Protein backbone atom coordinates (compact mmCIF):
# COMPACT_ATOMS: atom_id res chain seq x y z
CA UNK A 1 0.00 0.00 0.00
CA UNK A 2 1.22 3.46 -0.84
CA UNK A 3 1.06 6.15 1.84
CA UNK A 4 0.95 9.91 1.74
CA UNK A 5 1.84 12.41 4.42
CA UNK A 6 -0.40 15.21 5.64
CA UNK A 7 1.59 18.14 7.03
CA UNK A 8 0.63 21.38 8.71
CA UNK A 9 2.95 23.98 10.24
CA UNK A 10 2.72 26.32 13.20
CA UNK A 11 5.17 29.16 12.90
CA UNK A 12 6.08 31.73 15.52
CA UNK A 13 7.69 34.95 14.31
CA UNK A 14 8.92 37.72 16.58
CA UNK A 15 7.70 41.09 15.36
CA UNK A 16 10.16 43.91 14.66
CA UNK A 17 8.80 46.31 17.28
CA UNK A 18 11.14 48.33 19.47
CA UNK A 19 9.21 47.63 22.68
CA UNK A 20 7.38 44.60 24.05
CA UNK A 21 3.74 43.75 23.35
CA UNK A 22 2.22 44.93 26.66
CA UNK A 23 4.94 47.13 28.22
CA UNK A 24 7.72 49.55 27.25
CA UNK A 25 10.71 47.25 27.85
CA UNK A 26 13.04 46.82 24.89
CA UNK A 27 12.77 43.76 22.63
CA UNK A 28 16.49 43.86 21.84
CA UNK A 29 18.15 40.45 21.63
CA UNK A 30 21.10 39.47 23.77
CA UNK A 31 20.88 41.90 26.70
CA UNK A 32 22.30 41.12 30.14
CA UNK A 33 20.16 38.58 32.00
CA UNK A 34 16.90 39.98 33.44
CA UNK A 35 17.60 43.61 32.51
CA UNK A 36 14.69 44.06 30.03
CA UNK A 37 12.00 43.51 32.62
CA UNK A 38 9.29 45.48 34.42
CA UNK A 39 6.26 44.66 36.58
CA UNK A 40 4.14 43.91 33.47
CA UNK A 41 6.44 41.36 31.80
CA UNK A 42 7.39 39.86 35.17
CA UNK A 43 3.71 39.28 35.86
CA UNK A 44 3.73 41.15 39.16
CA UNK A 45 0.29 41.48 40.78
CA UNK A 46 -1.56 44.65 39.85
CA UNK A 47 0.45 45.41 36.71
CA UNK A 48 -1.75 46.27 33.75
CA UNK A 49 -0.86 45.19 30.20
CA UNK A 50 -1.43 47.80 27.46
CA UNK A 51 -1.29 46.64 23.84
CA UNK A 52 1.46 48.08 21.61
CA UNK A 53 -0.13 49.66 18.53
CA UNK A 54 2.83 48.65 16.33
CA UNK A 55 2.14 44.98 17.14
CA UNK A 56 -1.29 45.35 15.53
CA UNK A 57 0.26 47.22 12.57
CA UNK A 58 2.82 44.47 11.94
CA UNK A 59 0.29 41.65 12.39
CA UNK A 60 -2.10 43.28 9.91
CA UNK A 61 0.81 43.70 7.51
CA UNK A 62 1.71 40.02 7.85
CA UNK A 63 -1.94 39.13 7.30
CA UNK A 64 -2.18 41.21 4.13
CA UNK A 65 1.12 39.84 2.83
CA UNK A 66 -0.24 36.31 3.33
CA UNK A 67 -3.56 37.12 1.60
CA UNK A 68 -5.58 36.90 4.81
CA UNK A 69 -8.86 38.41 5.84
CA UNK A 70 -8.34 40.97 8.64
CA UNK A 71 -10.88 40.44 11.41
CA UNK A 72 -12.21 43.79 12.53
CA UNK A 73 -13.26 42.98 16.06
CA UNK A 74 -11.09 40.71 18.17
CA UNK A 75 -10.10 40.25 21.78
CA UNK A 76 -7.22 38.73 23.70
CA UNK A 77 -7.52 35.49 25.67
CA UNK A 78 -5.79 33.88 28.62
CA UNK A 79 -4.15 30.53 28.02
CA UNK A 80 -3.54 28.97 31.42
CA UNK A 81 -0.59 26.69 32.08
CA UNK A 82 2.19 26.29 34.60
CA UNK A 83 5.75 26.55 33.41
CA UNK A 84 8.48 28.60 35.09
CA UNK A 85 9.21 30.69 31.97
CA UNK A 86 5.60 32.02 32.04
CA UNK A 87 5.61 34.40 35.02
CA UNK A 88 1.82 34.98 35.16
CA UNK A 89 1.02 31.26 34.85
CA UNK A 90 -0.91 32.23 31.74
CA UNK A 91 -0.05 33.57 28.34
CA UNK A 92 -2.00 36.44 26.81
CA UNK A 93 -2.84 35.32 23.29
CA UNK A 94 -5.84 35.18 20.95
CA UNK A 95 -8.09 32.15 20.82
CA UNK A 96 -11.60 32.38 19.35
CA UNK A 97 -10.82 35.57 17.45
CA UNK A 98 -7.48 35.64 15.61
CA UNK A 99 -6.61 39.01 14.06
CA UNK A 100 -6.17 37.46 10.59
CA UNK A 101 -7.59 34.32 8.96
CA UNK A 102 -8.13 32.44 5.69
CA UNK A 103 -5.04 33.35 3.71
CA UNK A 104 -2.68 31.46 1.43
CA UNK A 105 0.87 31.27 0.13
CA UNK A 106 1.83 29.98 -3.30
CA UNK A 107 4.82 27.69 -3.65
CA UNK A 108 6.61 26.45 -6.74
CA UNK A 109 6.63 22.64 -6.66
CA UNK A 110 7.84 20.20 -9.28
CA UNK A 111 4.22 19.68 -10.29
CA UNK A 112 3.70 23.44 -10.66
CA UNK A 113 2.20 26.18 -8.52
CA UNK A 114 0.56 24.99 -5.30
CA UNK A 115 -1.50 26.98 -2.86
CA UNK A 116 -0.95 26.35 0.87
CA UNK A 117 -3.79 27.65 3.04
CA UNK A 118 -3.18 29.87 6.07
CA UNK A 119 -5.80 29.09 8.67
CA UNK A 120 -5.08 31.94 11.06
CA UNK A 121 -2.57 34.47 12.37
CA UNK A 122 -2.89 35.68 15.92
CA UNK A 123 -0.87 37.97 18.19
CA UNK A 124 0.56 36.83 21.52
CA UNK A 125 3.40 37.31 23.98
CA UNK A 126 6.57 35.24 24.07
CA UNK A 127 7.69 33.47 27.26
CA UNK A 128 11.01 33.86 29.05
CA UNK A 129 13.95 31.57 28.46
CA UNK A 130 14.77 28.60 30.67
CA UNK A 131 18.24 27.08 30.86
CA UNK A 132 18.37 23.67 32.48
CA UNK A 133 21.38 23.08 34.65
CA UNK A 134 21.91 20.21 37.07
CA UNK A 135 19.09 20.13 39.59
CA UNK A 136 17.82 23.56 38.62
CA UNK A 137 16.34 25.61 35.83
CA UNK A 138 17.57 29.18 35.42
CA UNK A 139 15.09 31.72 34.08
CA UNK A 140 15.78 34.92 32.11
CA UNK A 141 12.66 37.03 31.51
CA UNK A 142 14.16 39.38 28.87
CA UNK A 143 12.15 37.61 26.18
CA UNK A 144 8.98 37.53 28.26
CA UNK A 145 6.45 39.78 26.51
CA UNK A 146 8.29 40.05 23.19
CA UNK A 147 5.53 40.23 20.57
CA UNK A 148 4.88 37.20 18.39
CA UNK A 149 2.57 36.26 15.61
CA UNK A 150 1.62 32.61 15.40
CA UNK A 151 0.85 31.51 11.87
CA UNK A 152 -1.11 28.27 11.52
CA UNK A 153 -1.37 26.62 8.12
CA UNK A 154 -4.04 24.27 6.86
CA UNK A 155 -2.88 20.63 6.57
CA UNK A 156 -2.13 21.24 2.89
CA UNK A 157 1.43 19.98 2.50
CA UNK A 158 2.08 16.42 1.30
CA UNK A 159 5.86 16.03 1.49
CA UNK A 160 8.85 17.25 3.53
CA UNK A 161 10.01 19.10 0.41
CA UNK A 162 6.72 21.02 0.18
CA UNK A 163 6.93 21.90 3.87
CA UNK A 164 10.43 23.25 3.36
CA UNK A 165 9.45 25.22 0.24
CA UNK A 166 6.51 26.70 2.12
CA UNK A 167 8.58 27.65 5.16
CA UNK A 168 11.25 29.25 2.95
CA UNK A 169 8.64 31.19 1.02
CA UNK A 170 6.90 32.31 4.20
CA UNK A 171 10.19 33.56 5.66
CA UNK A 172 10.96 35.44 2.47
CA UNK A 173 7.51 37.12 2.51
CA UNK A 174 7.85 38.11 6.18
CA UNK A 175 11.31 39.55 5.47
CA UNK A 176 10.07 41.49 2.42
CA UNK A 177 7.13 42.85 4.41
CA UNK A 178 9.59 43.78 7.17
CA UNK A 179 7.43 42.41 9.98
CA UNK A 180 10.14 40.18 11.49
CA UNK A 181 13.90 39.78 11.15
CA UNK A 182 13.28 36.00 10.97
CA UNK A 183 16.65 35.08 12.52
CA UNK A 184 16.25 31.39 13.19
CA UNK A 185 19.50 31.17 15.16
CA UNK A 186 18.19 33.83 17.57
CA UNK A 187 14.80 32.14 17.79
CA UNK A 188 12.90 34.97 16.14
CA UNK A 189 11.45 32.47 13.67
CA UNK A 190 10.43 29.07 15.04
CA UNK A 191 8.53 26.23 13.49
CA UNK A 192 6.53 23.31 14.89
CA UNK A 193 4.99 20.75 12.61
CA UNK A 194 2.01 18.41 12.72
CA UNK A 195 2.27 15.30 10.60
CA UNK A 196 0.24 12.18 9.97
CA UNK A 197 0.17 9.55 7.23
CA UNK A 198 -2.72 7.85 5.44
CA UNK A 199 -3.24 5.50 2.50
CA UNK A 200 -2.80 7.52 -0.68
CA UNK A 201 -6.15 8.76 -1.98
CA UNK A 202 -7.88 8.52 1.40
CA UNK A 203 -9.84 11.52 2.63
CA UNK A 204 -9.53 10.72 6.30
CA UNK A 205 -6.71 11.95 8.49
CA UNK A 206 -4.46 9.56 10.38
CA UNK A 207 -3.35 10.14 13.98
CA UNK A 208 -0.88 13.00 14.01
CA UNK A 209 2.25 13.75 15.98
CA UNK A 210 3.73 17.15 16.67
CA UNK A 211 7.45 17.74 16.20
CA UNK A 212 9.30 20.57 17.90
CA UNK A 213 12.83 21.93 17.98
CA UNK A 214 13.72 22.25 14.32
CA UNK A 215 15.81 25.36 13.88
CA UNK A 216 16.70 25.26 10.22
CA UNK A 217 15.00 24.50 6.90
CA UNK A 218 17.15 21.41 6.54
CA UNK A 219 16.20 20.19 10.03
CA UNK A 220 12.49 20.62 9.19
CA UNK A 221 12.85 18.55 6.03
CA UNK A 222 14.96 15.85 7.69
CA UNK A 223 12.74 15.58 10.78
CA UNK A 224 9.69 15.15 8.54
CA UNK A 225 11.40 12.53 6.40
CA UNK A 226 12.31 10.58 9.51
CA UNK A 227 8.90 10.91 11.18
CA UNK A 228 6.92 9.95 8.06
CA UNK A 229 9.07 6.83 7.63
CA UNK A 230 8.63 5.99 11.32
CA UNK A 231 4.85 6.30 11.12
CA UNK A 232 4.57 4.24 7.93
CA UNK A 233 6.75 1.48 9.39
CA UNK A 234 4.69 1.46 12.59
CA UNK A 235 1.44 1.10 10.65
CA UNK A 236 2.90 -1.65 8.47
CA UNK A 237 3.94 -3.49 11.64
CA UNK A 238 0.40 -3.23 12.94
CA UNK A 239 1.31 -0.70 15.64
CA UNK A 240 -0.87 2.21 16.59
CA UNK A 241 0.35 5.80 16.18
CA UNK A 242 0.05 7.67 19.46
CA UNK A 243 -0.87 11.33 19.39
CA UNK A 244 2.16 12.88 21.10
CA UNK A 245 4.76 15.59 20.96
CA UNK A 246 8.17 14.58 19.66
CA UNK A 247 11.45 16.42 19.64
CA UNK A 248 13.88 16.48 16.69
CA UNK A 249 17.33 15.37 17.82
CA UNK A 250 19.69 16.80 15.22
CA UNK A 251 22.75 14.77 16.30
CA UNK A 252 20.90 11.44 16.31
CA UNK A 253 18.87 12.29 13.22
CA UNK A 254 15.72 11.07 14.99
CA UNK A 255 12.48 12.33 16.44
CA UNK A 256 12.15 11.35 20.08
CA UNK A 257 8.94 11.22 22.11
CA UNK A 258 8.93 13.91 24.78
CA UNK A 259 7.83 12.82 28.22
CA UNK A 260 4.15 12.42 27.53
CA UNK A 261 1.88 14.58 29.59
CA UNK A 262 -0.18 12.60 32.05
CA UNK A 263 -3.28 14.41 30.92
CA UNK A 264 -4.22 16.28 27.82
CA UNK A 265 -3.62 20.00 27.90
CA UNK A 266 -6.49 21.90 29.35
CA UNK A 267 -5.63 25.54 28.87
CA UNK A 268 -8.98 26.88 30.12
CA UNK A 269 -8.98 29.78 27.67
CA UNK A 270 -11.12 32.73 28.60
CA UNK A 271 -11.31 36.37 27.47
CA UNK A 272 -8.49 38.42 29.06
CA UNK A 273 -10.23 40.64 31.61
CA UNK A 274 -7.30 43.09 31.79
CA UNK A 275 -7.78 44.15 28.18
CA UNK A 276 -10.46 45.66 25.99
CA UNK A 277 -11.68 44.83 22.48
CA UNK A 278 -9.44 45.52 19.56
CA UNK A 279 -11.29 47.19 16.70
CA UNK A 280 -9.63 47.62 13.33
CA UNK A 281 -11.40 49.72 10.69
CA UNK A 282 -10.95 49.94 6.92
CA UNK A 283 -8.95 53.13 7.26
CA UNK A 284 -6.40 51.37 9.48
CA UNK A 285 -6.12 48.46 7.06
CA UNK A 286 -5.71 50.84 4.10
CA UNK A 287 -3.00 52.73 5.97
CA UNK A 288 -1.03 49.49 6.38
CA UNK A 289 -1.69 48.46 2.78
CA UNK A 290 -0.09 51.70 1.62
CA UNK A 291 3.15 50.77 3.36
CA UNK A 292 3.35 47.30 1.79
CA UNK A 293 6.48 46.91 -0.33
CA UNK A 294 6.58 44.82 -3.49
CA UNK A 295 6.41 41.16 -2.38
CA UNK A 296 8.42 38.30 -3.94
CA UNK A 297 5.66 37.01 -6.25
CA UNK A 298 5.00 40.46 -7.73
CA UNK A 299 8.70 41.13 -8.07
CA UNK A 300 9.23 37.83 -9.85
CA UNK A 301 6.49 38.64 -12.39
CA UNK A 302 8.05 42.07 -12.99
CA UNK A 303 11.52 40.56 -13.56
CA UNK A 304 10.07 38.13 -16.09
CA UNK A 305 7.86 40.67 -17.88
CA UNK A 306 9.98 43.83 -17.76
CA UNK A 307 13.51 42.47 -17.67
CA UNK A 308 12.98 39.29 -19.68
CA UNK A 309 14.59 37.06 -17.07
CA UNK A 310 13.93 33.31 -17.28
CA UNK A 311 11.40 32.22 -14.65
CA UNK A 312 13.97 30.05 -12.91
CA UNK A 313 16.41 32.95 -12.49
CA UNK A 314 13.65 35.34 -11.40
CA UNK A 315 12.55 32.81 -8.81
CA UNK A 316 15.99 32.44 -7.30
CA UNK A 317 16.87 36.14 -7.30
CA UNK A 318 13.56 37.15 -5.66
CA UNK A 319 13.75 34.38 -3.06
CA UNK A 320 15.99 36.67 -1.01
CA UNK A 321 15.08 40.31 -0.46
CA UNK A 322 18.74 41.28 -0.22
CA UNK A 323 19.69 39.47 -3.40
CA UNK A 324 16.81 41.17 -5.24
CA UNK A 325 17.96 44.53 -3.90
CA UNK A 326 21.49 43.84 -5.09
CA UNK A 327 20.16 42.93 -8.53
CA UNK A 328 17.96 46.02 -8.79
CA UNK A 329 20.78 48.29 -7.63
CA UNK A 330 22.97 46.94 -10.41
CA UNK A 331 20.21 47.47 -12.97
CA UNK A 332 19.67 51.02 -11.66
CA UNK A 333 23.40 51.61 -12.17
CA UNK A 334 22.85 51.03 -15.84
CA UNK A 335 23.72 47.39 -16.43
CA UNK A 336 21.74 45.10 -18.70
CA UNK A 337 19.34 43.12 -16.45
CA UNK A 338 20.02 39.84 -18.21
CA UNK A 339 23.80 40.25 -17.93
CA UNK A 340 23.51 41.08 -14.22
CA UNK A 341 21.21 38.11 -13.72
CA UNK A 342 23.72 35.83 -15.47
CA UNK A 343 26.48 37.05 -13.17
CA UNK A 344 24.33 36.57 -10.08
CA UNK A 345 23.13 33.12 -11.14
CA UNK A 346 26.71 32.15 -12.05
CA UNK A 347 29.76 33.53 -10.26
CA UNK A 348 28.02 35.39 -7.44
CA UNK A 349 25.83 32.56 -6.13
CA UNK A 350 28.45 29.92 -6.82
CA UNK A 351 31.07 31.80 -4.78
CA UNK A 352 28.60 32.59 -1.99
CA UNK A 353 27.72 28.90 -1.88
CA UNK A 354 31.35 27.78 -1.83
CA UNK A 355 32.14 30.13 1.02
CA UNK A 356 28.84 29.56 2.81
CA UNK A 357 28.12 33.30 2.80
CA UNK A 358 25.08 35.51 2.25
CA UNK A 359 24.85 38.38 -0.23
CA UNK A 360 24.79 40.79 2.73
CA UNK A 361 28.27 39.58 3.75
CA UNK A 362 30.05 40.51 0.51
CA UNK A 363 32.74 43.18 0.38
CA UNK A 364 31.99 44.46 -3.12
CA UNK A 365 29.06 46.62 -4.16
CA UNK A 366 26.55 46.19 -6.98
CA UNK A 367 28.15 49.29 -8.57
CA UNK A 368 31.47 47.42 -8.71
CA UNK A 369 29.83 44.44 -10.39
CA UNK A 370 28.41 46.84 -12.97
CA UNK A 371 31.92 48.26 -13.57
CA UNK A 372 33.21 44.74 -14.09
CA UNK A 373 30.45 44.05 -16.62
CA UNK A 374 31.33 47.28 -18.42
CA UNK A 375 34.99 46.24 -18.63
CA UNK A 376 33.90 43.10 -20.48
CA UNK A 377 31.47 44.95 -22.72
CA UNK A 378 34.12 47.51 -23.68
CA UNK A 379 36.49 44.68 -24.54
CA UNK A 380 39.03 45.72 -21.91
CA UNK A 381 39.03 42.22 -20.49
CA UNK A 382 37.70 38.89 -21.69
CA UNK A 383 35.00 36.87 -19.93
CA UNK A 384 37.59 34.43 -18.64
CA UNK A 385 39.68 37.22 -17.12
CA UNK A 386 36.50 38.81 -15.75
CA UNK A 387 35.94 35.70 -13.65
CA UNK A 388 39.44 36.05 -12.20
CA UNK A 389 38.85 39.74 -11.49
CA UNK A 390 35.54 38.82 -9.85
CA UNK A 391 37.24 36.32 -7.55
CA UNK A 392 39.73 39.00 -6.49
CA UNK A 393 36.98 41.59 -6.07
CA UNK A 394 35.04 39.10 -3.93
CA UNK A 395 38.06 38.58 -1.68
CA UNK A 396 39.21 42.18 -1.34
CA UNK A 397 36.35 44.46 -2.37
CA UNK A 398 38.78 46.35 -4.62
CA UNK A 399 37.53 48.19 -7.71
CA UNK A 400 37.66 45.97 -10.81
CA UNK A 401 39.57 48.64 -12.83
CA UNK A 402 42.20 48.71 -10.12
CA UNK A 403 42.53 44.91 -10.10
CA UNK A 404 42.88 44.85 -13.90
CA UNK A 405 45.51 47.57 -13.75
CA UNK A 406 47.50 46.14 -10.85
CA UNK A 407 47.61 42.65 -12.29
CA UNK A 408 48.08 43.76 -15.88
CA UNK A 409 45.02 41.91 -17.05
CA UNK A 410 44.02 44.25 -19.88
CA UNK A 411 43.00 42.22 -22.90
CA UNK A 412 45.50 41.99 -25.73
CA UNK A 413 43.82 43.00 -28.98
CA UNK A 414 46.99 43.96 -30.84
CA UNK A 415 47.06 41.54 -33.81
CA UNK A 416 50.85 41.70 -34.21
CA UNK A 417 51.44 40.81 -30.59
CA UNK A 418 48.99 37.92 -30.76
CA UNK A 419 50.38 36.70 -34.11
CA UNK A 420 53.81 36.54 -32.48
CA UNK A 421 52.49 34.33 -29.68
CA UNK A 422 50.62 32.13 -32.19
CA UNK A 423 53.77 31.51 -34.21
CA UNK A 424 55.78 30.78 -31.10
CA UNK A 425 53.20 28.17 -30.05
CA UNK A 426 53.14 26.64 -33.55
CA UNK A 427 56.95 26.40 -33.54
CA UNK A 428 56.88 24.63 -30.20
CA UNK A 429 54.18 22.16 -31.24
CA UNK A 430 55.19 20.68 -34.62
CA UNK A 431 53.19 17.52 -33.91
CA UNK A 432 49.94 19.48 -33.58
CA UNK A 433 50.70 21.31 -36.80
CA UNK A 434 51.29 17.97 -38.53
CA UNK A 435 48.06 16.58 -37.07
CA UNK A 436 46.19 19.55 -38.46
CA UNK A 437 47.73 19.02 -41.88
CA UNK A 438 46.55 15.38 -41.71
CA UNK A 439 42.99 16.55 -41.19
CA UNK A 440 42.78 16.29 -37.41
CA UNK A 441 40.79 19.45 -36.76
CA UNK A 442 40.88 18.75 -33.02
CA UNK A 443 44.46 20.00 -33.05
CA UNK A 444 43.18 23.55 -33.56
CA UNK A 445 41.49 23.55 -30.20
CA UNK A 446 44.68 22.45 -28.51
CA UNK A 447 46.70 25.19 -30.19
CA UNK A 448 44.17 27.87 -29.27
CA UNK A 449 44.32 26.65 -25.69
CA UNK A 450 48.12 26.93 -25.70
CA UNK A 451 47.98 30.45 -27.12
CA UNK A 452 45.50 31.56 -24.45
CA UNK A 453 47.74 30.00 -21.82
CA UNK A 454 50.84 31.70 -23.20
CA UNK A 455 49.03 35.06 -23.09
CA UNK A 456 47.91 34.31 -19.51
CA UNK A 457 44.33 34.43 -20.73
CA UNK A 458 44.66 38.01 -21.86
CA UNK A 459 44.53 37.55 -25.62
CA UNK A 460 41.21 38.40 -27.24
CA UNK A 461 39.73 34.97 -28.03
CA UNK A 462 38.13 36.01 -31.35
CA UNK A 463 41.42 37.38 -32.65
CA UNK A 464 43.27 34.27 -31.44
CA UNK A 465 40.82 32.03 -33.34
CA UNK A 466 41.26 34.02 -36.51
CA UNK A 467 45.05 34.19 -36.36
CA UNK A 468 45.59 30.52 -35.45
CA UNK A 469 43.60 29.55 -38.50
CA UNK A 470 45.52 32.00 -40.72
CA UNK A 471 48.96 30.96 -39.48
CA UNK A 472 48.18 27.22 -39.66
CA UNK A 473 47.20 27.57 -43.31
CA UNK A 474 50.54 29.28 -44.04
CA UNK A 475 52.51 26.29 -42.72
Amino acid at each position, binding site marked *: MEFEAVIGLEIHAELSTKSKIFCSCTTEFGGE*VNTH*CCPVCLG*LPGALPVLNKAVVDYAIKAGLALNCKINKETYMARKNYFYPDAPKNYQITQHETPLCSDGFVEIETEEGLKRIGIQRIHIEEDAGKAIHEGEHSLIDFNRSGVPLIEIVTKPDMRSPKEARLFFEKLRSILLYAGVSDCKMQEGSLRCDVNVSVRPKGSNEFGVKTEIKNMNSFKALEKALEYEIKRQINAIKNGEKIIQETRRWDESKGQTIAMRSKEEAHDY*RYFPEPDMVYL*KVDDEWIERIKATMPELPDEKKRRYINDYGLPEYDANIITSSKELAEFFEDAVLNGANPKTVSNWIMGEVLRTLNDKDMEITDVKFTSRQLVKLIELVEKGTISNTIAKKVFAEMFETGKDPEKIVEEKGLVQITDENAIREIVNKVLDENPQSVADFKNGKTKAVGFIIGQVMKASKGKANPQIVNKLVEEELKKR
Partner: protein
Amino acid sequence: MIVDKNTVDYVAKLARLEFSDEEKEKFVEDFNKILEFVEKLNEVNTDDVEISISAYPMYNALREDEVKTSLDVEKVLLNAPDKENNFFRVPKVVD
Protein backbone atom coordinates in the same frame (compact mmCIF):
# COMPACT_ATOMS: atom_id res chain seq x y z
CA MET B 1 -23.24 20.31 35.11
CA ILE B 2 -22.75 18.35 38.30
CA VAL B 3 -19.43 18.64 40.13
CA ASP B 4 -18.19 15.48 41.84
CA LYS B 5 -14.96 14.65 43.66
CA ASN B 6 -13.21 13.78 40.39
CA THR B 7 -13.93 17.25 39.04
CA VAL B 8 -12.50 18.83 42.17
CA ASP B 9 -9.40 16.62 41.93
CA TYR B 10 -8.92 17.59 38.28
CA VAL B 11 -9.34 21.33 38.86
CA ALA B 12 -7.05 21.19 41.88
CA LYS B 13 -4.40 19.43 39.84
CA LEU B 14 -4.64 22.03 37.05
CA ALA B 15 -4.22 24.76 39.66
CA ARG B 16 -1.37 22.85 41.36
CA LEU B 17 -3.22 22.92 44.68
CA GLU B 18 -3.56 20.20 47.29
CA PHE B 19 -6.56 19.68 49.55
CA SER B 20 -7.61 17.28 52.29
CA ASP B 21 -10.59 14.96 51.68
CA GLU B 22 -12.63 17.10 54.00
CA GLU B 23 -11.89 20.23 52.02
CA LYS B 24 -12.70 18.46 48.78
CA GLU B 25 -16.10 17.41 50.11
CA LYS B 26 -16.76 21.06 50.95
CA PHE B 27 -15.70 22.13 47.45
CA VAL B 28 -18.07 19.64 45.84
CA GLU B 29 -20.88 21.15 47.83
CA ASP B 30 -19.87 24.78 47.19
CA PHE B 31 -19.16 24.33 43.49
CA ASN B 32 -22.54 22.73 42.91
CA LYS B 33 -24.26 25.56 44.74
CA ILE B 34 -22.39 28.16 42.69
CA LEU B 35 -23.19 26.42 39.42
CA GLU B 36 -26.80 26.05 40.40
CA PHE B 37 -26.94 29.78 41.07
CA VAL B 38 -25.28 30.64 37.75
CA GLU B 39 -27.66 28.23 35.97
CA LYS B 40 -30.30 30.88 36.50
CA LEU B 41 -28.65 32.86 33.67
CA ASN B 42 -29.72 30.13 31.25
CA GLU B 43 -33.29 31.26 31.73
CA VAL B 44 -32.49 34.43 29.80
CA ASN B 45 -32.68 34.24 26.02
CA THR B 46 -29.28 35.43 24.68
CA ASP B 47 -29.68 34.28 21.06
CA ASP B 48 -29.09 37.71 19.57
CA VAL B 49 -26.62 38.98 22.15
CA GLU B 50 -22.95 39.06 21.30
CA ILE B 51 -20.29 37.84 23.69
CA SER B 52 -19.10 40.57 26.01
CA ILE B 53 -15.59 40.64 27.44
CA SER B 54 -15.96 43.79 29.48
CA ALA B 55 -18.63 45.64 31.39
CA TYR B 56 -17.38 48.90 29.87
CA PRO B 57 -17.98 49.82 26.23
CA MET B 58 -14.27 50.37 25.65
CA TYR B 59 -11.98 49.39 22.83
CA ASN B 60 -8.46 50.02 21.52
CA ALA B 61 -6.60 50.95 24.67
CA LEU B 62 -3.26 51.14 22.89
CA ARG B 63 0.19 52.55 23.48
CA GLU B 64 2.81 53.84 21.07
CA ASP B 65 5.85 51.66 20.36
CA GLU B 66 8.31 53.45 22.63
CA VAL B 67 11.04 51.97 24.79
CA LYS B 68 11.25 53.14 28.38
CA THR B 69 13.78 52.23 31.05
CA SER B 70 13.30 48.79 32.57
CA LEU B 71 13.80 47.90 36.22
CA ASP B 72 17.27 47.43 37.65
CA VAL B 73 18.11 43.76 37.83
CA GLU B 74 18.36 44.01 41.65
CA LYS B 75 14.73 45.10 41.74
CA VAL B 76 13.72 42.45 39.22
CA LEU B 77 15.10 39.78 41.55
CA LEU B 78 13.63 41.20 44.78
CA ASN B 79 10.81 38.65 44.74
CA ALA B 80 12.93 35.75 43.52
CA PRO B 81 12.79 32.89 46.02
CA ASP B 82 16.19 31.79 44.74
CA LYS B 83 18.69 33.21 42.25
CA GLU B 84 22.01 32.53 40.53
CA ASN B 85 24.06 34.99 38.43
CA ASN B 86 21.01 37.25 38.04
CA PHE B 87 18.84 34.37 36.85
CA PHE B 88 15.73 33.26 38.74
CA ARG B 89 16.56 29.77 40.00
CA VAL B 90 13.79 27.19 40.24
CA PRO B 91 13.60 23.41 40.66
CA LYS B 92 14.40 21.72 37.35
CA VAL B 93 11.41 21.62 35.00
CA VAL B 94 11.70 19.96 31.60
CA ASP B 95 8.73 19.09 29.43
